[in-house]
């Protein structure tokens, strides 16, 4: 029902020469995460992992993944936003 844009995903992984990728999907798309991981691992040399937790918005990015040598987070369902000063 929603475009996963897997071609663009592969392009991103290749362009950024990512070796370890985390895919972060909103709850409504989490059941597609297996499909996404399989597609990335089949079409690139990168290993792909699934973020288990929340994906509330582009404001909600997992932290601390450097420790696992993750080099790319791909988040679905959101676009870039401008943080406001409060």
């Amino acid at each position, binding site marked *: 029902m929603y475009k996963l*844009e897997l071609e663009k995903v592969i392009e991103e992984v290749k362009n950024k020469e990512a070796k370890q990728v985390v895919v972060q999907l909103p709850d409504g798309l989490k059941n597609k995460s297996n499909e996404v991981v399989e597609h990335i691992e089949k079409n690139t040399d990168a290993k792909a992992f699934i973020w288990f937790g929340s994906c509330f918005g582009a404001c909600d990015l997992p932290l601390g993944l450097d420790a696992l040598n993750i080099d790319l987070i791909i988040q679905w369902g959101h676009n870039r936003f401008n943080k406001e000063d409060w």
Partner: protein
Amino acid sequence: MVRLALIESEYEKEIFPTKELINHLKENKIKTIALFASIQFATLDKFTEELEKEGLEIKITKAKRTNKPLQVLGCDCYSDSFAESIINDSDIILYVGDGMFHPKALLLAQIKTKIKPVLIFNPISESLEIITEKDIEKQVQKMKRNLRMFLNSESIGILVTIKPGQQYFLSAKRLKEKLESEGKKAYIFLDDSINLNNLENYPFIQSWVNTACPRIGTDDIVNFTQPIINLKEASNPITALEDLENGKS
């Protein structure tokens, strides 16, 4: 360094207005529409074209946080969240999308004035739904109550998330100083996802200030007895309370 790619997950189909939608607009003698959508449904060229053919004027603005015209985020829930005041200047607010999180932001954004209903067009089920001030009544009552309790609190807990897009650590530290200068005690609490069930572990706090997602201080509060207000209101709580009292809801 971890890099980031964002995929918008756009809805696959072209969106057109249904007869039911057009009839609804005609029956209610609508002339101008303030149009909003969530990112999945924010490509509405054909939809807009069809409505314009019916003689309707479509008004579009850009919410300050978004990067796409007519897109609305859940945090665009303040009267100053939008570049232009199309909500005030239109006969009706039309939201295209599914779920209640985004259209409710459009009700909350009107809290200081008379709250116009939001007409929701769900392009998946092609159904219509109307939400009104009644749908946020409980929230608004709780927001007022929480502000009054905050003003009378001597011991304040300030909640800060480490989520980069919602992190207001500096503002929290500034607020702590301000509260302390007023003779109050203030403590800053850090977490990733803020689980409000954990509030009960800190009975020495009388009131909480949420600096993370503003919808915590407008929506989640209805389920908790502990008073929680948002950062934006905490910096000027008396004005915030007056605005709510003067609102028509």
